[in-house]
């Protein structure tokens, strides 16, 4: 049993909502325990400066940003090296499911704002961005779901909190596209054997499948409401 009463392979309380902002062409809200991310998508749209345009496909840009009030110690506004790296791996995690060749020379902008952070912010951001892309009507091969796993006291555990992250032997965020059965993000900090890595990734993938259900549910809800 974990500090917050969850079983090892249990997700934190998960809330996914699609279409939460008016101006963004697609948007979503994701809450995983005390981590809250929102995402908004614009595009495909004209891309400036022109030298960024790609002749055969869309240019996918992502900005991951932490609100100044999202952490215990205030986060100074602006992109630091960490958020630049996360922006890149998040874009790479989402691109595999997008039909990028449909929109040559254009750009899609994905903006992720972390409003509240308690570990797993990049995963929550991917989950929100993926739903926002679908909400924007971007043609996709499926959704990408993400969650971290790790090993604490010999147990493989899913969806770590910040307190657990401090005690874990490793933190392994994984993004997964269930429709393609592909891992699209994989990072790790820690100390695990090869076997442990395989097992932790398996646990994470099972978690991603649960997240995926919630994402699909949120999109269905949105369209159900739209039909009423």
């Amino acid at each position, binding site marked *: 049993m974990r500090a917050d009463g969850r079983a090892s392979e249990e997700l934190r309380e998960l809330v996914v909502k699609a279409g939460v*902002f*008016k*101006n*963004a062409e697609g*948007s979503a809200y994701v809450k995983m325990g*005390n981590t*809250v991310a*929102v*995402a*908004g998508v*614009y595009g495909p*749209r004209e891309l400036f400066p022109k030298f960024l345009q790609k002749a055969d496909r869309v240019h996918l840009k992502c*900005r991951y*940003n932490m*609100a*100044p*009030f*999202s*952490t*215990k*110690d*205030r986060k100074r*506004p*602006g*992109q630091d090296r960490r958020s630049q790296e996360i922006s890149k791996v998040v874009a790479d995690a989402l691109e595999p499911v997008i039909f990028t060749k449909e929109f040559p020379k254009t750009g899609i*902008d994905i*903006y992720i*704002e972390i*409003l*509240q*952070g*308690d570990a797993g912010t990049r995963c929550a951001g991917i989950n929100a961005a993926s739903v926002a892309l679908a909400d924007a009507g971007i043609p996709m091969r499926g959704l990408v779901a993400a969650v971290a796993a790790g090993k604490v006291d010999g147990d493989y555990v899913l969806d770590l909190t910040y307190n657990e992250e401090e005690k874990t032997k490793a933190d392994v965020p994984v993004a997964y596209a269930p429709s393609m059965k592909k891992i699209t993000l994989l990072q790790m900090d820690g100390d695990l054997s090869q076997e442990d890595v395989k097992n932790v990734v398996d646990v994470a993938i099972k978690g991603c499948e649960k997240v995926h259900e919630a994402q699909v549910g949120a999109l269905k809800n949105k369209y159900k409401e739209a039909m009423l």
Partner: protein
Amino acid sequence: MMTIDEGYVHELAEKGSRLDGRRLDEFRNAEIETNLIKSAEGSAQVRLGNTVVIAGVKMSVGEPFEDKPDEGVLMVGAELTPLADPDFEPGPPDIRSIEVARVVDRTVRESKMINVKALKIDDEHVWVVNVDLHVMNFDGNLIDAGSLAAVAALATAKMPKYENGKVNYDERSGSLPITAMPVSVTTVKINGKLLVDPSKREENAADARLTVSVKNDGNICSLQKGGTEGFTTEELHEMLRLAGEKQKSLRDSLK
């Protein structure tokens, strides 16, 4: 050359009407939700029509400014997140976010909303209060929405404890020393008419703008004129009157 949309807004104003059917002196509905951000000492989300602003208050302990050794430090920042509008771009704060932050800062500061002297801890330490405005969706009138969000977040903030030279964010020791609640009211001039609480399309069509911030006692604590045309003293008087009237319902939404 006005755009067609600007021309249309001007025409409507002349007839005394607006794009969304409001009266010229009618505010959009203001919905305020507080304490929605657990990582902040105080927080509030304001929806003013389709304008959505989140304010988060973070507190830390630092040194006082040299010229104000007995006072805590208050700082307001604003970020127009690029998801809030198709025309917003990521990057360092532009003049719009700087203006919002500075006008909200003056409004809170000059109203003496926070008793900054009560934020002194000892000769070398004072509380530093950061209010950050995060614009999530943009449909005009950021100053009034941002001001409401900042005031609501400050009013409901819970101070962390300061123990053995460290801030303990897991325990709380009460509210900030609040002494007043300022409210901002923005009016624009379009085609000679005065409209309160402009939407984005109205702001684009506006000739001039005035923000009047009003304290509980009806006194004015800050003014900010914007826009590339001027206004007469009669128009000023009418804008002051509108502010005095409109602040009441906004103030109610703060309760």
